């Protein structure tokens, strides 16, 4: 006979113990995800908007113009079907929690440049049924137009009105087509993508580049040496509707 009962049980028991031991001991150090721990090695893109500089140039819409031009954003000419990536909003609408009647006039009356906040806890991503919008590792909330079914849950989910729906074919409403960037088609949602297509070429977002007052600063907020961290350390900053818990990543200096 090759093996008796005692020997079999001993081997079986030892095998079980070894397997269990490996799982328990091996899992904890290797299971750490650098992204979940918020480690500084992970890039997290954010933007600071200096409203003091911005309001020095009243009526300037350079950021909107360049962004909408290079991304083929149509000008429908009808407020109900408007499509916007970056635009100016009056202070009360942009910061309802911070606004009160007796606020300084220059703050109260100066419009804020608003765009997608690329939230850390993005409600639009949570509600998207097809996974066509998601958060990249560097924090950008991206959209995959190929998968968007136009349900508009994300439009309803976004508390900042950053998302626009294409109620009609946008092509006839684009003055000058940029052949290097696709247009959208009827029935998809669109929004700011932090110029993901420029970032891969080592360029800054177009709005940051063009701003004549240099009011926009863009960078990695996880890097303590970065310019935006230095600005945030030295000036008082506010964010849009932080009470909602979305942790927006566009910071405003008032």
């Amino acid at each position: 006979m090759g093996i008796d009962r005692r020997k079999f049980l001993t081997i079986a028991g030892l095998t079980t113990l070894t397997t269990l031991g490996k799982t328990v001991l091996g899992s904890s150090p290797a299971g750490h995800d650098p992204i979940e721990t918020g480690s500084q090695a992970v890039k997290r893109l954010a933007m600071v908007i200096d409203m003091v500089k911005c309001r020095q140039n009243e009526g300037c819409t350079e950021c909107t113009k360049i962004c909408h031009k290079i991304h083929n954003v149509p000008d429908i000419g009808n407020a109900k079907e408007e499509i916007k990536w970056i635009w100016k909003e009056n202070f009360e609408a942009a910061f309802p929690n911070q606004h009160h009647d007796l606020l300084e006039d220059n703050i109260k009356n100066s419009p804020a440049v608003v765009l997608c906040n690329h939230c850390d806890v993005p409600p639009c991503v949570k509600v998207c049924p097809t996974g066509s919008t998601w958060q990249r590792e560097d924090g950008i909330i991206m959209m995959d137009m190929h998968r968007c079914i136009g349900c508009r849950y994300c439009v309803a989910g976004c508390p900042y009105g950053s998302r626009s729906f294409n109620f009609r074919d946008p092509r006839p409403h684009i003055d000058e087509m940029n052949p290097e960037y696709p247009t959208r088609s009827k029935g998809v949602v669109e929004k700011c993508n932090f110029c993901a297509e420029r970032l891969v070429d080592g360029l800054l977002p177009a709005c940051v580049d063009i701003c004549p007052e240099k009011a926009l600063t863009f960078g990695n907020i996880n890097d303590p040496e970065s310019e935006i961290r230095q600005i945030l350390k030295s000036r008082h900053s506010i964010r849009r509707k932080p009470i909602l818990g979305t942790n927006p990543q566009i910071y405003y200096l008032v």
Partner: protein
Amino acid sequence: MYDTGKIILGILIFLVLATSPFWYSKATGQADYLPDPVILTKDMPGKDVCVMPTDYMRSSHMDLLNDWRNSVVRDGERKFVSPNGHEYKKSLSNTCMNCHSNKAEFCDKCHNYMAVDDQTCWSCHVEPKEEL
């Protein structure tokens, strides 16, 4: 059997009529038509070859485009290195159509023949303006 001759003649006439479209297109040469896409290649220094060998592109360009689409949009991978070591930007409008700038004579030729609906690409991606 009554009227054998008439029945057989009737069957023959029916067969000729029923298959007449095939004979007709054979006789006029329509059945032999094969699409002949015009391959233009603009001067691209060092890149006068396609991103993949011609045989592969002929059979699997749609798979390559799907891979490019997914990796660019979902993973942010925008660089492609071809088997012969050239580096390309993964882009339909900015890479493929740079060389094959004649959509009507290139893409459409076969797609129309095979009844392939590529409107899903061109309703968003901008096709190059053709110089006629």
